[in-house]
């Protein structure tokens, strides 16, 4: 009997996967259109103002061909896409390296930062939200809610500035800027060094991330604690602790997980700002430089990669949902 149920589950996973791929393709088209619309001249960005003045006709034509400016946009997109699928994302104008290389280095840095912040904010936010929801209206709830509302309205980059001032400038606990000390070869960087540079950005991102997760978890918790099945568990004489463990946590786990994976997108956005303030050489900082200096291939690459990250997050959430929620695992809803 199980084979039929499981084939349904696989179908569900397969559909989620196809949907993610289609969306990703659409993101690439959207991003490509946007960067193509830009009045920023890639040749000018590439050679600079002085170089532009010294450029002769033949070289200009060569560069135009190199950037594909003489081909129609649809064809250009097609070329870009086929290259991209083969792992060639073009050459970054500012780093003068293949975009794939730039992204993979920066991605590792950012990944460390984001995964730290994501885990911390997820776990702490979940715990705080659960407690607040459980003790609704008491002082602990007011405290957690107050913190979350305040932090949800706090500009991430400003909080980063404040942390920088307090911990680096005043207390001198952490270094100002750069994830690697200047003048130290990458090989000599100790794990401790990278950690020291990671802590403040991760702290900022987590502090902001906690707010949202806590607020949403709190709402869910309040809803669940008023559900009929919790009432009935009470009527059966189950203790508050048993109700929380047996019913409430189980039932908020699913929405909390979805929320947690959905927060990847926000964490990424936050990391752009945080990396800028702490001069942390990650994907976000690269995205800003690419945007400011007209590095189209890099900007495009980052857009697609970050969207891939977001969709992968959603996909994992969907699959986990299917694994955890018996209604999907045993194939009743969401045909």
């Amino acid at each position, binding site marked *: 009997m199980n084979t039929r149920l499981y084939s349904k589950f696989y179908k569900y996973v397969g559909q989620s996967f196809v949907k993610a791929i289609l969306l990703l393709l659409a993101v690439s088209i959207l991003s490509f259109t946007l960067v193509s619309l830009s009045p920023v001249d890639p040749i000018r960005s590439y050679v600079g103002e002085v170089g532009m003045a010294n450029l002769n006709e033949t070289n200009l034509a060569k560069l135009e061909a190199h950037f594909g400016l003489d081909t129609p946009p649809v064809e250009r997109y097609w070329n870009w896409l086929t290259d991209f699928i083969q792992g060639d994302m073009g050459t970054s104008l500012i780093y003068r390296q293949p975009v794939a290389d730039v992204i993979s280095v920066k991605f590792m840095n950012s990944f460390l930062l984001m995964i730290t912040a994501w885990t911390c904010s997820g776990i702490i936010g979940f715990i705080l939200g659960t407690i607040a929801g459980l003790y609704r209206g008491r002082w602990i709830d007011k405290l957690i809610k107050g913190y979350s509302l305040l932090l949800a309205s706090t500009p991430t980059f400003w909080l980063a500035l404040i942390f920088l001032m307090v911990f680096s400038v005043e207390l001198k606990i952490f270094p100002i800027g750069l994830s690697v000390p200047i003048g130290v070869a990458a090989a000599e960087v100790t794990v401790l060094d990278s950690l020291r540079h990671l802590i403040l950005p991760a702290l900022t991102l987590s502090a902001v991330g906690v707010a949202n997760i806590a607020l949403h978890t709190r709402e869910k918790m309040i809803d669940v604690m*008023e559900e*009929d*099945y919790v009432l009935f568990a*009470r*009527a*059966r*004489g189950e203790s508050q602790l048993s109700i929380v463990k*047996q019913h409430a946590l189980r*039932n908020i786990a699913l929405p909390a997980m979805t929320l947690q994976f959905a927060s990847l997108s926000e964490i990424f956005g936050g990391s752009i700002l945080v990396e800028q303030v702490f001069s942390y050489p990650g994907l976000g900082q690269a995205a800003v430089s690419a945007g400011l200096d007209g590095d189209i291939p890099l900007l495009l690459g980052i857009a697609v990669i970050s969207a891939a990250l977001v969709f992968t997050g959603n996909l994992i959430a969907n699959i986990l949902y299917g694994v955890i929620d018996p209604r999907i695992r045993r194939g009743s809803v969401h045909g």
Partner: protein
Amino acid sequence: MTCLDHKHILQIDNLSVSFTQYERGLRQIDLKVIHNLNVSVHEGELVAVVGASGSGKSLLAHSILGILPPNCNASGNIIFDGELLDAARIRQLRGKEIVLVPQSVSYLDPLQKVGLQVRKGRNDKHIRRKQEELFSLYDLPEDTGGLYPFELSGGMTRRVLLSEAMMGNPRLIIADEPTPGLHLEAAQNAMSHFRQFADQGQGVLLITHDIDLALKVADRIAVFYAGTTVEEALVTDFQSIDTLRHPYTKALWRALPQNGFHPFPGNQPYVKDMPKGCPFGPRCHQFTPECEEDIPEHIIRCGTVRCIHAE
């Protein structure tokens, strides 16, 4: 309260439940959904509570179990086996001495297997055996315990809820509309279990809107109207309209198929525009100006009634 000389298991005096609500978000109003409600269950007795939808039957059950929604006020005396209960004592008794068969199937946790829920999360061998016995008593297939609520039919869920109540050794079962969704045989089966349970000297408070069903199994019937008990009568009182006391009960009686099927037009008043005095006043053919004053409870022929014209 009645002339029965049995010992009380449950006695509820003057129960009131009110909600604080916001009218269009502006004014705070106090909605009294249950007021001055009395009802009792004796040893060995099955008492049916009948009343229209929204008359406060479920809230009565929830008050006894201390699971009212947090935005309401409740007061009244709940006396259980001679002991006046407060919220803390209720918390100790519920699930052990007093059990509930809830009204709707949404009272099962959608993410936990029903067997585990019936066993309250316990997995000991003898508890497991008891659960399996009860499931087979209610004709549930053997593997039902391993299913999730969404995998059960409405009738199966009902039977799971019924077995749940029988898991322990309760003194009092409060069953809130336990039969909808059950086919006739299963419903009769459930009712005969309740009957047997009561006959062993325990008590059952059966909430239903089905008077016919109540007449078949109950010893006494408490009639609810707009948040209060208008009459508590012996089942035998329903054999003739003359032995009934309250005009509302009489109207219900006339509406029964065997008594001519005379429907009674109109509806019970909505809590927000409750009339003064007797809530039944505006629909009553015996209405007099005195009905707009406070109506005390009388005892007539071993039954109670809240009507100044009753005899």
